[in-house]
């Protein structure tokens, strides 16, 4: 059975591009449009990795990371933040929240897969 990755982004284009890249590499992909939906989708799932945007409606990516880390089943699940935010202060917030890595958009498929394979 393949590894399952949850991708969270309010942009359908971004979800499509991330999903396309990961599916081509053989991963199972779940999608969510914001932090709250991501928590719903993650419930009961055995996720190998979560990739989330930061700026999203209803619940942002940093809060999502904190909420997932608070759940025992996701305490050690790799979480990558994929965002247009490149400021050091935001990166620091992501690190403190428990993110595994920070990728600044736009991503190249090759580089994304390289990072994904490193953290898995």
């Amino acid at each position, binding site marked *: 059975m393949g590894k399952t990755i949850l991708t969270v982004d309010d942009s359908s*284009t971004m979800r499509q*591009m991330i999903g*396309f890249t990961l599916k081509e590499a053989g991963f199972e992909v779940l999608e969510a449009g914001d932090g709250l939906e991501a928590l719903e989708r993650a419930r009961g799932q055995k996720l190998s990795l979560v990739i989330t945007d930061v700026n999203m409606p209803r619940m942002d990516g940093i809060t999502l990371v904190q909420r997932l880390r608070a759940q025992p089943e996701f305490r050690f699940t790799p979480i990558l933040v994929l965002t*247009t935010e490149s400021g050091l202060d935001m990166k620091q917030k992501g690190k403190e929240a428990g993110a595994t890595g920070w990728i*600044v958009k*736009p*991503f190249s498929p090759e*580089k994304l897969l390289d990072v994904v394979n490193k953290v898995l």
Partner: protein
Amino acid sequence: MKPGFRWGSGAIPEPVRDMPAPLHPVLRKVAGQEARVLGDRADFLRTELDRVDTLVGEAAHTLEQALMTLSDGVKTQHQLALSVQDAMHIASRGMDSTDAAATVSATIVGTLDAFVGNMLEISKSSMQLVEEVEDIRTRSDAMESMLVELGEIAGQTHLLALNATIEAAHARKFGAGFAVVAGEVSKLADRSTALSATIQQQIQGTRDALRRTDAQVQAIASKDLTLAIQSRGESEALVQALDESTRKVRDLVGEMEVNAGRIETQVGHVVRSLQFQDLVHQTLQACMRELDSLQQQAGAWQGLADALDRGRDEGEALEVLAGSLAEADGMRFKTVTHDSLAAGDVDLF
């Protein structure tokens, strides 16, 4: 009024706070105009930005669908290339297709060489056989000549026996014994003649058989060798065509693989470039928030006009305006800082 505060179109001059009462209608008019202008422009910009966001979103969606279709096409092409490779692999019995084609060609040419070699040996033996047949025919002719001479001898012997019989009759009783001998000699001459005729029949039969054998051997020696040489030439041409075909298929599969690699690289560029929609969307969202700020400022100006209409003190009304404008000014949102579609940085914690 807070220091450094800015209006929608510039700083409020300090003397405004001390303006005389008759200026009230002018201030109310200015406030109303500012509220309307700011509101109208904000509405216009919001409509246009919405339109841009929609257009970009639709374009991105179309490109996404095209990308998926392209990707499926590339996958299909890749599968076809693999199928061709598998087919060549099976046909070559597990060997490399180039080695297999060379092996098949060598085997066919080797078999044909052996076949033609055998045919040449047969032809050579046939020619020797023809010579042997000719020799037998010559010997038969010689034997036939000898039989003719033997016939003549038998005839002479028979004549001699007849003469001896006549002479024995002349000798009366003294020639009786000699007549018996002459009779026996005559019988031997008759048997010799009969035997000669029989041998001649046998020789004729042998000559007929030799003639038929000669014709058949001649046919083998000429006709079959021509066919074999022709078949070898045709088979060599076929093998060359097979070699050429195999090489072309191999080259085409190679080109397909190179092409698939190029497309994969381009798909990567497309995936990266399509993210412009997200960058543009976020930039537009930041612009929308700026418009919210402008509309709040318009509301503040309208509030000033309404307060003056209700007869509120100008100074107090202006203080309220300053506070509202400062609040609206604080609604600035950070825009997307990424101004390029080059891949961003990666930082693992």
